[in-house]
């Protein structure tokens, strides 16, 4: 293993690579959005366990989503996507109803303009502007040219920190506040974070964010404290339909692959996995998803790349500088010794 692929590409043993000896298997999430009922139990269970503050009381008008995005105080976020498209096998009961050409004229404009007028356009993704797609709220009828609505589906998906194999937030953190745990997850240590905010733009998913009141960076810890006690994360435990599954990543990958096959067999060819590929731009994620459309539709970047791909060269300079600092520090303490 070369120094380089510690920051890019497949990596079999993330915890071991981070110096954890005799560590447990890498743990993660598999979120099967095909059974998500959009109840938001994950959002609440997360907040109750992690004692997070509320995130404001704004009606966002993005279907039933009033959370908008992941952020410093919302570590799970359920996106709702309404589309004039079928889910294979589902009859949405549109054919034969006197629905008009809904996607034209005032209505479409109204929905679109109103959405853009909401706080953060319903998609506030960090203190630094990150150009990410919003969860799509397809204008009814757009692009079909149809006289009436021909189909409909309503997708729901619970998003969360991806706990990347190569985590941009972690790689740029100058204080050691962000660290890789023995479970292979990525956690901000609040007793160390100084609120510099470098991590925020470093995340290709726009997950981590700083809290306005204390300035520190916050995100999903995959319930690090619960994991240490042998418990599953709060969101996965609460999830009523087991849309959010927790376990050793290897097992989850197998389960996810089986689920995709199963859905393909019953006629849902659009089912696909996201984040399971170790050859992607972040070396695969610790939180993968079964999606029913392109990632952009859910507000997920189609091709995320860890911004620190080119960091090793830079890091070597930083390492040398730190080494010099150690020498200086020891010298300073030694000099004070009585």
């Amino acid at each position, binding site marked *: 293993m070369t120094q380089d692929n510690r920051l890019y590409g497949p990596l079999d043993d993330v915890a071991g690579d*981070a110096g954890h000896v005799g560590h447990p298997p890498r743990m993660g999430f598999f979120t099967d959005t095909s059974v998500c009922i959009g109840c*938001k139990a994950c959002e609440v*269970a997360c907040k109750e366990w992690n004692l997070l503050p509320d995130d404001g009381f704004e009606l966002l008008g993005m279907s039933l989503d009033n959370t908008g995005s992941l952020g410093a105080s919302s570590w799970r976020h359920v996106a709702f996507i309404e589309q004039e498209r079928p889910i294979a096998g589902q009859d949405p009961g549109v054919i034969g109803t006197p629905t008009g050409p809904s996607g034209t004229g005032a209505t479409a404009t109204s929905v679109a303009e109103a959405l853009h007028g909401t706080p953060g356009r319903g998609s506030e993704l960090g203190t630094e502007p990150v150009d990410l797609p919003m969860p799509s709220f397809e204008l009814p009828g757009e692009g079909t040219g149809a006289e009436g609505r021909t189909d409909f589906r309503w997708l729901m998906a619970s998003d969360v920190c991806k706990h990347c194999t190569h985590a941009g937030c972690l790689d740029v953190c100058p204080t050691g506040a*962000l*660290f890789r745990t023995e479970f292979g997850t990525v956690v901000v*240590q609040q007793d160390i974070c100084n609120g510099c905010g470098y991590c925020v733009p470093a995340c290709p998913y726009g997950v981590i964010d700083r809290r306005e009141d204390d300035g520190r960076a916050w995100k999903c810890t995959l319930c690090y404290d619960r994991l240490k006690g042998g418990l599953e994360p709060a969101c996965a435990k609460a999830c009523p339909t*087991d849309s959010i599954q927790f376990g050793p990543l290897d097992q989850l990958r197998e389960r996810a692959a089986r689920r995709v096959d199963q859905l393909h067999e019953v006629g849902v060819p659009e089912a696909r996995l996201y984040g399971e590929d170790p050859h992607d731009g972040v070396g695969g994620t610790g939180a993968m998803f079964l999606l029913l459309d392109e990632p952009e539709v859910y507000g997920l970047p189609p091709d995320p790349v860890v911004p620190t791909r080119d960091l090793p060269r830079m890091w070597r300079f930083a390492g040398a500088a*730190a*080494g010099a600092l150690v020498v200086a520090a020891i010298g300073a303490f030694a000099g004070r010794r009585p």
Partner: protein
Amino acid sequence: MSLRTFVEGWPVYRQLTGTDPLGRGAAAMSVRSAALTPRTEDADRVARSVCPYCAVGCGQKVYVKDEKVVQIEGDPDSPISRGRLCPKGSASKQLVTGPQREQKVLYRAPYATEWTELDLDSAMDMVADRVLDARHKGWQDEDHHGHTVRRTMGIASLGGATLDNEENYLIKKLFTALGAIQIENQARI
């Protein structure tokens, strides 16, 4: 703390000498992180309860530390819910510990524009007096057809459906003995 311990505990030192040369894992773990445990582990006791929202009847475990509820989550043993909870059930701790929970009896006098505080015993006394008064004012031995009814039309009650069976039982029993019949429940609504 000796200098040696201090230095060895310093992340940069650990990073340079340990298994984590990039300082992103074991070497970066803070003292707090190393000592972290789920707060449910420290609970003094766990009560087995049932979610108070809808009628599915999900099992809840209520973790108590120092006589305070510190966590409520699903009971995995329940054959009904298998440990899962919806957003409302998941917010149960906020429901029972939040600042919206009133703790004092409040009284609004006729024509008053604000509440005043009242001690519990006085309030109970006042309510008991008023129950007897309203019962008397609304009493009927017979209805207007001359049929015996022996009841009072002066008192009504409307109960929510989060009352326990035992509570409903005493409510109906007491009101029936008082002759009050307009005793209703969310179940009608």
